[in-house]
């Protein structure tokens, strides 16, 4: 077979396969499901942030006409959690509630209003405990009696890590200048349009089906089996089309488990649709992080050593926290050459809704610190901030000091292009007071190198079936959360077979029908499912080529798949239609189907925590933000954002631009206004979209997107990711632009008018950093592939 030179589907701005249904309102989301005899459920949530549950009595609720069942913690005592080593959640509190909003009981009734009314008839006796609401309070509460959880080693510390790479002391000693700063990145939530929803049905065949708006049906499948104590083989999880996830639908949740359990009891389909307010309590959003960053440079600005301490406010449960804490230290080394690096991080428990992964998972916070510090270094040394970076960029095919392997790298091009389009040299430090421009760069992963639970199986599986009609059906466990993963499968297969995307059907995210894909997180889906799909196509193509070669009397190595035909590359008029070829191949080989799998490359690092950071490929982004900042009112108006993103290959440029712009918009929300904040009594301050400010189209400025294609060797057709990386540089670029505009450094987000005014008046205090004894560092050098030294 000859390799086609031109691509006919990949790289074209095609419409998403599910776009028309969404625009026409025909997409069936979880809340659109209506099953016969369906009943409705509600969760009773704790009004206290921290309390012992002494007793739950549902007797009065059960007497209400139309109430079908009530369950409490006693019905579901098995603990669960997304990370196998920190399973500390309960579907319903067994003996303790850990944040205001923590579920304690669930009611199913014949109507949603009745279920809600019934909540008022459940009597719960609480012993109210003192809540812990800040990182400092958590670290100071070391007494056993002050614990939020009992399983963790140090009271209220979920995880503390310390890693050291290269000669850190020597690096600082060699430096001509040392820069130190403290930073705070406020927590914020995902705010997807679609609120959480799940429908459970335990059928007469003794099998359970759960439909849910989830990004991770496979992990949910495992959690259901564990908590419900049912064989996984009798559980089917179907991820319905997700109306936005951004990381917030990646954990197994109470409402999902309770929908299943209530259906097992009532033998009727049970639906949960959470309110917007409840979404703020379920949360799993961006961690509030306090940071201390230190960078040593030569007088020409080259980095000699870098050191970070991060303090994560985790909320009431572990969720992804184990990964989150490592991510606050993993990727600082992936943009500039850093010869020595040390990272210490700690995630604490507090009595607030649990934090987890949100677009960029744990990396926007340290990137905010790093890029502001780079700007400060450039300022002090009198170097243009772009030049400072350009002289020490990481290179393609290199290994960072912490052992991360970079394949393709378009960072230089991203910097140059964005600078040119924004006319950086003309504007930087040359605009009048109140008008400024700022720059930042960043790197992100294309899929986590390790699965959430240890196993040797592929991260993504694809199965393809060819039909005599010429139709192709692809089965894959991947979950379309709006990012377009269904479309990616179609584009890859259409390109491989040279057929029209319309002739391909996609069946995804159904644990009964589709091979496992680990889920829509860590920007892993395009690279992993794309490669698996191409592999499956390759197996089928061998069979098709054999049949076509015989029928056409053309050697297989002269055949190509193009324009709906299998044809001779040298004599294109000699060919047969794809459908005819399928018929011939089926006659020859029998029923046609094949599978493909994808495993990421082996992790070259072998130390505790080494799973966080490695990836098949890194993406790079740069942003320039131009803004106006009013010195009288402190108000910021973003004029324009230029963003360049190295996505490897733009599988579909329309989708890549969409993801990039979406990231910019979300980043601006985090930079300027969004905050998940709490009252002194631990209750969420603003659990509604009216009060939780997020940008709308009105606040979103013009965005100019520049796609840089580096055609990565590991990516399908060279593609990397676009869903998360472009968020990262925008937030620090805003802060750097504020400095250019009015001359004050803001080391905190959101950058609100009051902070600007306090900074202008010299009253904005530096972010305080808590005291904490980190464990002795684990020291590691790249190249050896072994641990150098490990103190306990």
């Amino acid at each position, binding site marked *: 077979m000859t390799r086609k030179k031109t691509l006919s589907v990949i790289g074209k701005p095609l419409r998403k396969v599910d776009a028309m249904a969404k625009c026409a309102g025909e997409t069936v989301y979880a809340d659109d499901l209506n099953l016969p005899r369906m009943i409705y459920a509600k969760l009773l949530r704790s009004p206290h942030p921290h309390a012992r549950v002494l007793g739950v009595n549902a007797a009065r609720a059960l007497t209400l006409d139309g109430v079908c069942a009530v369950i409490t913690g006693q019905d579901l005592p098995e603990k669960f959690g997304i990370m196998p080593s920190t399973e500390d959640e309960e579907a319903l509190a067994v003996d303790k509630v850990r944040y205001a909003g923590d579920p304690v009981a669930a009611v199913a009734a014949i109507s949603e209003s009745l279920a809600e009314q019934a909540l008022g008839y459940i009597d719960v006796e609480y012993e109210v405990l003192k809540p812990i609401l800040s990182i400092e309070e958590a670290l100071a509460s070391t007494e056993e009696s002050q614990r939020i959880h009992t399983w963790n080693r140090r009271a209220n510390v979920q995880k503390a890590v310390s890693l050291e790479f290269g000669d850190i002391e020597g690096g600082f000693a060699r430096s001509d200048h040392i820069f130190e700063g403290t930073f705070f990145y406020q927590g914020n939530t995902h705010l997807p349009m679609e609120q959480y929803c799940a429908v459970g049905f335990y059928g007469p065949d003794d099998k359970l089906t759960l439909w849910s708006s989830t990004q991770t049906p496979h992990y949910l499948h495992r959690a259901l089996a564990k908590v419900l104590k049912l064989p996984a083989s009798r559980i089917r999880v179907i991820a319905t089309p997700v109306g936005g996830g951004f990381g917030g639908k990646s954990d197994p949740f109470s409402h999902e488990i309770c929908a299943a359990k209530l259906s097992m009891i009532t033998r009727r389909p049970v639906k949960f649709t959470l309110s917007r307010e409840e979404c703020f309590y379920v949360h799993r959003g961006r961690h509030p992080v306090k940071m201390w960053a230190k960078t040593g440079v030569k007088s020409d600005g080259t980095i000699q050593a870098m050191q970070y301490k991060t303090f994560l406010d985790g909320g009431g449960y572990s969720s992804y926290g184990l990964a989150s804490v490592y991510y606050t230290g993993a990727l600082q080394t992936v943009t500039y050459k850093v010869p020595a690096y040390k990272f210490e991080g700690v995630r604490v428990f507090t009595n607030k809704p649990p934090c987890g992964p949100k677009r960029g998972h744990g990396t926007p916070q340290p990137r905010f610190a790093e890029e502001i510090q780079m700007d400060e270094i450039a300022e002090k040394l009198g170097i243009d901030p772009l030049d400072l970076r350009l002289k020490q960029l990481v290179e393609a095919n290199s290994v960072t000091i912490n052992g991360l392997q970079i394949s393709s790298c378009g960072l230089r091009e991203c910097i140059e292009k964005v600078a040119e389009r924004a006319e950086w040299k003309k504007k930087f430090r040359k605009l009048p007071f109140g008008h400024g421009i700022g720059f930042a760069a960043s790197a992100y992963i294309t899929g986590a190198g390790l699965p959430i639970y240890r196993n040797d199986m592929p991260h993504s599986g694809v199965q393809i079936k060819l039909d005599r009609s010429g139709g192709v059906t692809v089965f894959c466990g991947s979950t379309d959360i709006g990012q377009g993963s269904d479309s990616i499968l179609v584009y890859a297969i259409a390109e491989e077979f040279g057929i029209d995307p319309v002739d391909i059907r996609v069946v995804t995210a159904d644990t009964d029908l589709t091979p496992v894909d680990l889920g829509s997180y860590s920007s892993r889906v395009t690279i992993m499912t794309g490669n698996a799909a191409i592999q499956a196509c390759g197996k089928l193509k061998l069979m098709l080529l054999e049949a076509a070669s015989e029928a056409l009397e053309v050697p297989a190595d002269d055949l190509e798949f193009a324009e709906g035909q299998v044809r001779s590359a040298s004599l294109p008029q000699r060919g047969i239609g794809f459908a005819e070829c399928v018929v011939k191949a089926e006659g020859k080989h029998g029923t046609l189907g094949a599978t493909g799998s994808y495993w990421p490359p082996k992790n070259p690092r072998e130390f505790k925590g080494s799973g966080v950071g490695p990836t098949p490929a890194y993406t790079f982004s740069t942003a320039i933000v131009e803004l106006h900042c009013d010195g009288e009112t402190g108000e910021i108006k973003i004029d324009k954002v230029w963003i360049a993103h190295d996505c490897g290959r733009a599988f579909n440029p329309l989708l890549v631009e969409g993801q990039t712009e979406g990231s910019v918009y979300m980043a601006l929300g985090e930079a300027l206004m969004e905050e998940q904040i709490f*009252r002194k009594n631990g209750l969420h301050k603003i659990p509604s979209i009216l009060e939780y400010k997020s940008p709308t189209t009105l606040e979103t400025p013009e965005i100019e997107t520049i796609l840089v294609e580096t055609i990565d060797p590991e990516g399908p057709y060279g593609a990397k990711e676009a869903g998360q990386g472009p968020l990262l540089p925008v937030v620090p670029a805003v802060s750097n632009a504020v400095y250019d505009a009015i001359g004050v450094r803001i080391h905190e987000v959101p950058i609100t008018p009051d902070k600007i005014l306090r900074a202008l008046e010299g009253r904005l205090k530096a972010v305080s950093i808590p005291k904490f004894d980190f464990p002795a560092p684990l020291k590691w050098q790249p190249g050896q592939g072994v641990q150098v030294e490990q103190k306990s």
Partner: protein
Amino acid sequence: MLRLPEFNYVRPRSLREATKALAALGPEAMAVAGGTDVYPKMKRGQFTPRHLVSLRGLRELKGIRQTKDGLWIGAGESLTAVSRHRVIAKRLPALAHAAGSVSTPQLRNMGTIGGNVLVDTRCNYYDQTFFWRQAVGFCMKKDGQICLVAPGSEKCLAIASSDTAPVLVSLGAVAVLVNKQG
């Protein structure tokens, strides 16, 4: 999703029927015009009426006319209509501006000027769901005893949030009130 609790919906054909219904049903009844304030508050348990008497479609509340004393504006006119009316825009631009600055187009299409004048007062402790108010402790405006803004206060300090009322007051507007006698 927050559910609207059950209630009886009364749809009178004339203003007279409406006032009679309100009088007959007593304190458990409320008038509803556009419903943009009433329905969300019922979902959050701030209003708990058993009966709603609808003022929609009452011809007596419609129309914007010039009279010998000035302008007569029907309470049932939408905020959109008030903000776009030619005479109002020309002679009372502040009123047109106030009506046009309320929330969003959808809300202005549904919301009436009568409802806007009588819109409930706002407070961060009060404009919350039942769960939240219960968790923080109810205040005297609904279900509780004390004021959470000023615990020593004997009365509720929630503020009026109507955009048109201050303009109407400053223009010296007069409200025409009706009851079941007329």
